[in-house]
């Protein structure tokens, strides 16, 4: 199992539909300050079911929708699709690829879908649980978070091991 592609539209600084091919091995993301590197990570955290805006450096969930820039108007909807290669059958779904999509409109409507058919957050959580992706606390380390690992309380550290167990 690995992440195969990520399609981002209207999420944070991605105003245009942007499809990013991913592959096994080491991928290094580079670019100037403010160019959108951490926003790519946020889009993965979000499509995997993140609930609190704070985990996305936001105050309200709709902060993730492209708010506009100096010569572009804001958009009304954010949509991210993560395609996972499942040819080894890690995910309990009989398909060689699994596409997870999440969308949010300014009116607050939020949808998930798995391989095109509507799904709820709980379906997503079930799907990912076996693959140790879960709440993904220990597999996605956001900017500045490496130091926080050590200031976490002992119960929080235990929770990280339990999540992976």
């Amino acid at each position, binding site marked *: 199992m690995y992440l195969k592609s990520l399609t981002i539209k209207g999420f944070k600084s991605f105003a245009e539909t942007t499809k990013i091919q991913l592959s*096994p091995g080491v991928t290094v993301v580079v670019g100037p300050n403010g160019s959108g590197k951490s926003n790519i990570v946020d889009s993965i955290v979000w499509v995997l079911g993140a609930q609190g805006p704070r985990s996305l450096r936001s105050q309200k969930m709709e902060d993730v929708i492209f708010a506009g820039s100096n010569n572009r108007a804001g958009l009304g909807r954010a949509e991210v699709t993560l395609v996972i290669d499942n040819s080894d059958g890690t995910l309990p779904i009989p398909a060689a690829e699994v596409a997870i999509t999440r969308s949010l409109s300014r009116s607050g409507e939020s949808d998930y879908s798995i391989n095109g058919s509507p799904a709820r957050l709980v379906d997503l959580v079930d799907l990912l649980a076996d693959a140790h992706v879960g709440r993904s606390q220990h597999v996605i380390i956001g900017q500045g978070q490496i130091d926080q690992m050590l200031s976490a309380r002992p119960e929080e550290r235990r929770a990280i091991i339990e999540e992976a167990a």
Partner: protein
Amino acid sequence: MRSVFMVALEDVNRSFQAIFSQLFPGGSATVVLLDTENPLQSGVDFELSIPAKKVRRMSLLSGGERSMVALAFLFAIFQSRPAPFVILDEVEAALDDKNLARFLGLLEHFRTTAQLLVISHQKRTMEVADVLLGATMDKSGTTKVVREEISKRLPLAIRTAE
């Protein structure tokens, strides 16, 4: 019947010791239960020994040392309970040259067993990439991403010999 957690803790500890001694040559580390009477609830703490030093409190460790301890813990969990991918956003910002080299050694070690997505400003981290993703912010304040397969950058002679 040992709980799932206790079994995982033992596995994590085996990996933690192995990886920690790679990042801190001559050092050792274990994750311990704070309240052994109550293994089902107890939080965990680190017991560390770093060569030449007496580590009294984690808060007294330096910025770079804290990053290395956290990386050893994360990769120990990752090794004992493999996940399909790991994403690291500028985790090596506080490291000096020697520790950066040890971190890159970790990436080399795991590159064949997992998908690693690493955000970085360090040139030496870019050098271990199979693929580079370049993000730019254009004049209209939106992100564009370009992709470059590094293996294609090998001198032509080597590539045609592949």
